[in-house]
C-alpha cells in the first residue's frame, strides 16, 4: 500500500461531514447545507483523482493483484474461538472496472442530490446528517471486497434511507418507509445467511500456512479455497449452492427491483423527497445489479450458467411490464418509478448475455440510468416545488411557460427513450446486441425490443400531456429554472450528451474488467463443477 | 527495634482511638479534629512502611486540604449562631451489629489467610525518583487523566455550588 488511502477517504469523508453537521448549533442551517455540499464536492474531486490514477489495463474480478487502490488490513481477529479457531475479518477495499463507474456515479449523484436538498427546511440538521451517512453507506458498498464489510455498509445505507423517507417524505411516508425497509431487510436476511454459509465453506491460507475461514470474496471465487464439507462448497456433493444462489439473488433482486419484488419502488419514490428519489433511482437500484455482478456471477459461476435464461426472462418482464405499467400512471413520479423498473430490466438482460458487449451495455446502462433518471426526478421535483402537484393530467402546455425547463425535459425524456446522441442509446443497443449474440436468450432479446417502442409511447405521451398543447391557465405564474436548478441539470445534461457521443470515456474504464469477467465466466463453471460432482 | 515497636503501637492507638471518636462524637468540630489525628496516625504508618512521599502527601493534602474543606463545610452548613454544632445518629443498633459482624469476619479472614511475603524483606527504596519515573512513564496516562479529573471536579464543584444562588 504505497498510495494514499483514497478509497477510505472517499468513503468516510461523509462521516466527518456528518460529525461537523451534528456539532453545528441549531441556527446554522446554511452552514450545514454548505458542509454537505462541500463534502460531496470533495468526493467528486477525489473520484476525479482516482479516475486519473486508474490503470485501464488491470482487470480485477477475481484477481486480487489487479484490483486498484487496495487497502487491506486485519480488522477483527479473535483467536481460539470454539471450533473456528481463528475468526478474522479484513478491512479490504479496492476497485476494478466494474466498481469504478459506480464510484463515479455515486460521487456525482450525491453531489447533485445535495444541491437538490437545498430547499429542504424541515429538521435540516438531522436530514443532512442522515444524508451524509447514506452516502458513506453507498460508497462503502461499491468499494468493499470483503463480504462482511459489504454487508455492514449495505445495512448502514438502509437505516438513513428509512428515516429520510419516513421523516421528510410525502403524505404516506410512513407506509412507504416501512415497506422499503422491510423489503430490503427481507433481502438482507437471505444475504446474511448466504454470507455465513460461504464463510463456513471457504478458507484462506495465511502467510504462516494456517488455514482460516474467510469473508474475502476474491477467495470465494476460487474453488480451490473451499473446504471438503462446507455447506456451500462445490466439493461437497450435497451442497446447497443452488438454494444459496437463489437466496442471494433474491436479496439483490429486491434492490433492483426485479418483478415481482418491485412494488416498494413506486411507493418509495412517490413519497420520498426529490433528492432522495434521485439517490434512490440514481445509486441504490444499482446496488442490486452490482451485487449480482460482483457476488452471484463470480462466486457461483456454474449456477449462473444454469439460471441465465431466467435472469434474462425476468429482465424482459421488467422491461415490458414496467413500461406498460408506466403508461397507465397518472402520477408523474410514479410513472418515472415504473420507467426505472423498465430500464433496470435492460441491465438484467445485458448481464444475462455473458458476453462483452452485453455486460458492457449492462454496466453502462447502470450508469446511464443513474444520470438520466436522476434528471427525470429532478425535473419532477422542479414542477412539484412550484405547483405542489404531480398529476400528469393537471398540467399542460408548460413549454410555453417554461421553455428552458422544457428543453432539459426534452433531453431527459429522449434520453430515457434511448435516442442516439444521448448515452442511454449506447447502453440499450449494446444490451440488445449482446443479448442477441447469446443463443439461449435470443428470443427474449427480440421480445425486449418492444420495450423501446413502449418507452417512446409513454414518454412522448407524458411529454405531450404535461408540456405540450395549450397552456393550462392555472399555471401561468410558474417561473422558469433558477440558478440552483441549472446547477443540478446542466452537469447531468453535459455528461449524458458527452457519453452519448463518445462513450469510450466510460467504456474504457470498465472494458478490461468486463473482458476479465467474461473470460472468467466462460471458463470457471467447468472448474467449479468438475471439482464437485 | 523497640523504638519501632513503640512507635507502631503509638500510631495504632492514635489512629483507632481518634477514628472511634470521629464516628461517635456528636460534635462535628470534635469529629473533624479527631479525623485530623487519625490522618496523622495513618501518615505514621506510611513512614513505617517506607513510603515517605505518601506520608508527606497525606499530611499536606488530607490534613492541609481535605480536612480544612470539611471544616468549611461544617461551618457553612451550620448557622454560626447555632451554638451546638452537633449531629445525631440513626440506625445505631443495626449499624453496630452489622459492622461488628463485618469486622469480625474481616479479622477472621485476616487471621486465617497466609500471605505471600517476600521472604527477607528488602530494604525500602527511598526517594521520589522512582515515583517520579513511574508517573512520567508507566502511569503518564492515568496521571494526565487525574489532572483532568481534578480540573473538572474543581469546575464542577464551583458550578454546582454557584447554581442555586442564581
Amino acid at each position, binding site marked *: 500500500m504505497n498510495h494514499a488511502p483514497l478509497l477510505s477517504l472517499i468513503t468516510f469523508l461523509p462521516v466527518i461531514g456528518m460529525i461537523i453537521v451534528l456539532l453545528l448549533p441549531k441556527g446554522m442551517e446554511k452552514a450545514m447545507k454548505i458542509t454537505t455540499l462541500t463534502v460531496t464536492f470533495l468526493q467528486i474531486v477525489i473520484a476525479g483523482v482516482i479516475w486519473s490514477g486508474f490503470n485501464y489495463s488491470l482487470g480485477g474480478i477475481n484477481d486480487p493483484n489487479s484490483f486498484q487502490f487496495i487497502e487491506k488490513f486485519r480488522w477483527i481477529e479473535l483467536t481460539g474461538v470454539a471450533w473456528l479457531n481463528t475468526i478474522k475479518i479484513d478491512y479490504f477495499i479496492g476497485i476494478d472496472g466494474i466498481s469504478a463507474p459506480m464510484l463515479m456515479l455515486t460521487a456525482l449523484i450525491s453531489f447533485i442530490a445535495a444541491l437538490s436538498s437545498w430547499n429542504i427546511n424541515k429538521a435540516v440538521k438531522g436530514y443532512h446528517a442522515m444524508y451524509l451517512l447514506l452516502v458513506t453507506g453507498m460508497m462503502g458498498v461499491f468499494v468493499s471486497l470483503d463480504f462482511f464489510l459489504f454487508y455492514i455498509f449495505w445495512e448502514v445505507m438502509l437505516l438513513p434511507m428509512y428515516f429520510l423517507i419516513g421523516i421528510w417524505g410525502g403524505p404516506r411516508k410512513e407506509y412507504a418507509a416501512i415497506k422499503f425497509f422491510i423489503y430490503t431487510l427481507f433481502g438482507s436476511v437471505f444475504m446474511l445467511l448466504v454470507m455465513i454459509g460461504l464463510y463456513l465453506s471457504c478458507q484462506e491460507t495465511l502467510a504462516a500456512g494456517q488455514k482460516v475461514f474467510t469473508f474475502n470474496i476474491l477467495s470465494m471465487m476460487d474453488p480451490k479455497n473451499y473446504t471438503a464439507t462446507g455447506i456451500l462448497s462445490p466439493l461437497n456433493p450435497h451442497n446447497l449452492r443452488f438454494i444459496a444462489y437463489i437466496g442471494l439473488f433474491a436479496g439483490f433482486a429486491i434492490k433492483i427491483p426485479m418483478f415481482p419484488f418491485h412494488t416498494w419502488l413506486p411507493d418509495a419514490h412517490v413519497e420520498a423527497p426529490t433528492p432522495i428519489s434521485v439517490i434512490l433511482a440514481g445509486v441504490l437500484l444499482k446496488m442490486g445489479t452490482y451485487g449480482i455482478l460482483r457476488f452471484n456471477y463470480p462466486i457461483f459461476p456454474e449456477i449462473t450458467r444454469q439460471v441465465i435464461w431466467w435472469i434474462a426472462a425476468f429482465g424482459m418482464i421488467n422491461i415490458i411490464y414496467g413500461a406498460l405499467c408506466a403508461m397507465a400512471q397518472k402520477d408523474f413520479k410514479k410513472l418515472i418509478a415504473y420507467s426505472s423498473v423498465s430500464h433496470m430490466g435492460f441491465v438484467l438482460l445485458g448481464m444475462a448475455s455473458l458476453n462483452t458487449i452485453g455486460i458492457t451495455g449492462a454496466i453502462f446502462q447502470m450508469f446511464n440510468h443513474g444520470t438520466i433518471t436522476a434528471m427525470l426526478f429532478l425535473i419532477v421535483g422542479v414542477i412539484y416545488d412550484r405547483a405542489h402537484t404531480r398529476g400528469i393530467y393537471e398540467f399542460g402546455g408548460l413549454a410555453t411557460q417554461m421553455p428552458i425547463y422544457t428543453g432539459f425535459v426534452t433531453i431527459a425524456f429522449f434520453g430515457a427513450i434511448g435516442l442516439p446522441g444521448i448515452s442511454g442509446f449506447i447502453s440499450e443497443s449494446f444490451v440488445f446486441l449482446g443479448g442477441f449474440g447469446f443463443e439461449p436468450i435470443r428470443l427474449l432479446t427480440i421480445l425486449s425490443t418492444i420495450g423501446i417502442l413502449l418507452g417512446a409511447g409513454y414518454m412522448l405521451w407524458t411529454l405531450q400531456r404535461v408540456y405540450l398543447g395549450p397552456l393550462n391557465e392555472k399555471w401561468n405564474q410558474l417561473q422558469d429554472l433558477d440558478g440552483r436548478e441549472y446547477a443540478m441539470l446542466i452537469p447531468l445534461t453535459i455528461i449524458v450528451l458527452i457519453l452519448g457521443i463518445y462513450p469510450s470515456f466510460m467504456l474504457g474504464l470498465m472494458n478490461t474488467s468486463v473482458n476479465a469477467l467474461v473470460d472468467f465466466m466462460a471458463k470457471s463453471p467447468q472448474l467449479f463443477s468438475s471439482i464437485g460432482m | 527495634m523497640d523504638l*519501632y515497636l513503640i512507635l507502631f503501637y503509638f500510631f495504632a492507638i492514635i489512629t483507632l482511638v481518634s477514628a472511634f471518636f470521629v464516628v461517635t462524637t456528636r460534635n462535628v468540630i470534635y469529629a473533624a479534629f479527631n479525623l485530623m489525628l487519625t490522618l496523622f496516625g495513618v501518615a505514621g504508618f*506510611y513512614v513505617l512502611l517506607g513510603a*515517605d512521599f505518601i506520608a508527606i502527601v497525606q499530611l499536606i493534602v488530607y490534613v492541609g486540604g481535605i480536612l480544612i474543606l470539611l471544616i468549611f463545610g461544617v461551618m457553612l452548613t451550620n448557622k454560626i449562631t447555632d451554638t451546638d454544632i452537633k449531629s445525631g445518629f440513626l440506625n445505631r443498633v443495626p449499624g453496630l451489629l452489622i459492622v461488628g459482624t463485618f469486622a469480625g469476619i474481616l479479622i477472621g479472614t*485476616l487471621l486465617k489467610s497466609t*500471605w505471600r511475603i*517476600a521472604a527477607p524483606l528488602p*530494604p525500602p527504596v527511598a526517594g521520589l525518583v522512582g515515583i517520579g519515573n513511574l508517573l512520567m512513564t508507566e502511569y503518564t496516562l*492515568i496521571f494526565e487523566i487525574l489532572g483532568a479529573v481534578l480540573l473538572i471536579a474543581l469546575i464542577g464543584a464551583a458550578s454546582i455550588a454557584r447554581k442555586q444562588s442564581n
Partner: protein
Amino acid sequence: MTDMSTLSTFLTHIGLGHFLFISGMLFSLGIYGVVTRKNAVMVLMGIELILNSANINFVAFARYGNYGFHGQLAALFVIILAAAESAIALAIVLNIYKTFNNVNVDEIDKLRE
C-alpha cells in the same frame, strides 16, 4: 531519618497482619460512621476513613510483596481522587443545604418517590 535495614527487620518481625488489622478496623469504623451519621459532613468523614484504610492496605501490600512503588502510586491516586471527591461532595452538600435548609441525610429521602 530512619535506619533502613533495622526498619526492614522490624517490619519482618511485626508482620503484615498488624497493618491489615488496623486497616480493617478503620474500614469498619468508617462504615459505621457512614451508616449511622445524620449529618452529611460526618458521612463524608466516614468515607475518608474508608479510603484511608484502603490506602494502608495498598502501601502495606506493596511493601511486603516487594512491588516497588506501584502500591504507593495507587495510594497517591486515591488521595487525589479523595480530594476531588470531597470537593464535589461538599458542593453537593452546600446545595442540599440551600434546598432543604439542613444537611441531615435522614430527612432527605427524595429517593423514595
